[in-house]
């Protein structure tokens, strides 16, 4: 349907169509992990990796297994199983081969299975009929966009904790949502550059 070259799509996924700020995906871990920048970075890296890989795997499975067998209605089950299995696999291999990395990323990996952004990226890829290269670009771009957003909000929250005095009830999730709203407004300023969908 839309002919965008993968490079453009990559930047569009980061800035103009940021999966967190315009599509509201991956909010749950976002709200709980964005308290500090370090944790946000760890989770962000894990998400970029898993999102890129699962987008590719899901693409191949969807077009080479599900569609020939006309089982496309079962894509939700298949995708979620693939994501869960992949996350498990990554967790085990990281633990086995890179213990130092596991120490940093370990606790974030299980969280990723229920991160809607991962499944969301795969579903958008199918609905918008991306090609393989576009899917890779979209998966990686969305992951990086998500990481960018969570780190930026994490940095804001760190500053807030040190200095700001907030009215009762506003601290915690409420202010995070409002910060996210402001950030989302700021990202809307990019939308003139590239238009996809």
């Amino acid at each position, binding site marked *: 349907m839309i002919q965008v070259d993968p490079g453009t799509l990559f930047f569009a996924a980061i800035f103009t169509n940021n999966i967190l700020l315009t599509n509201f995906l991956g909010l749950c871990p976002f709200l709980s992990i964005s308290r500090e920048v370090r944790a946000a970075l760890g989770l962000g890296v894990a998400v970029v990796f898993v999102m890129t890989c699962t987008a590719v795997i899901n693409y191949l499975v969807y077009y080479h297994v599900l569609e020939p067998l006309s089982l496309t209605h079962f894509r*939700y089950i298949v995708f979620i199983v693939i994501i869960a299995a992949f996350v498990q696999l990554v967790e085990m291999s990281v633990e086995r081969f890179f213990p130092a990395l596991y120490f940093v990323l370990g606790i974030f990996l299980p969280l990723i299975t229920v991160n809607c952004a991962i499944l969301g990226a795969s579903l958008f890829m199918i609905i918008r009929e991306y090609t393989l290269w576009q899917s890779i670009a979209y998966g990686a771009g969305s992951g990086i966009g998500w990481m960018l957003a969570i780190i930026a909000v994490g940095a804001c929250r760190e500053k807030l904790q040190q200095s700001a005095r907030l009215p009762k*009830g506003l601290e915690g*999730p409420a202010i995070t*949502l409002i910060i996210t709203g402001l950030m989302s407004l700021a990202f809307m300023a990019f939308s003139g550059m590239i238009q996809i969908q």
Partner: protein
Amino acid sequence: MPQPPTNIQIFKAGLWKDNPVLRQILGICSTLAVTNLMVNTLVMNAGLIFTLSMSSLTVSLLRNYTPKRIRMMVQTLIIASYVIIVDIAIKAYLPDISEALGPYVGLIITNCIIMGRCEAFARNNPPWPSFVDGLAVSIGYALVLLAIAVVREPLGFGTFLGYRIMPDGFTPWTVMIMAPGAFFMLGIYVWIIKAFFPQTEEGKK
């Protein structure tokens, strides 16, 4: 050993005291996106209520047969099956809305609230209370989303359920139909609830 709560108590707790969105800020991802139009919100909520109450019931029925180690996987599969039913039903009867909702129906699967209720309640309780719990929590969830949509649609499009309610000279607030509007509305609601109805047991997490 305290008395097991009655169904009414479970219902009330799910609706207000443990309201998933306002109290626990869970599971907003997949549904916040569709709150710019009332109709979409209603359809999405109906799907969510069905999925959550039926998966709670099923998880609870199977609770004695599910091995502990793979229970997450089993729960995910149960949820995914119901979501497929919802997706096919919406596609068949409401094709326009299905188009508008796009991937968000499928994303009900990863809505943490469903998994959360299965883990926290359904897996240790008999089927009927689990069903009531699922129903109450999802209705509580639906109400909050409707409250957001009720503000966003009139301000963003000047319509209510598709009917024009604003006067002719009204300039729509574009920000309300874009993503930031939803974030602001939810943030403000959470703020109001937390400021005026503080939870008695703070820091229970």
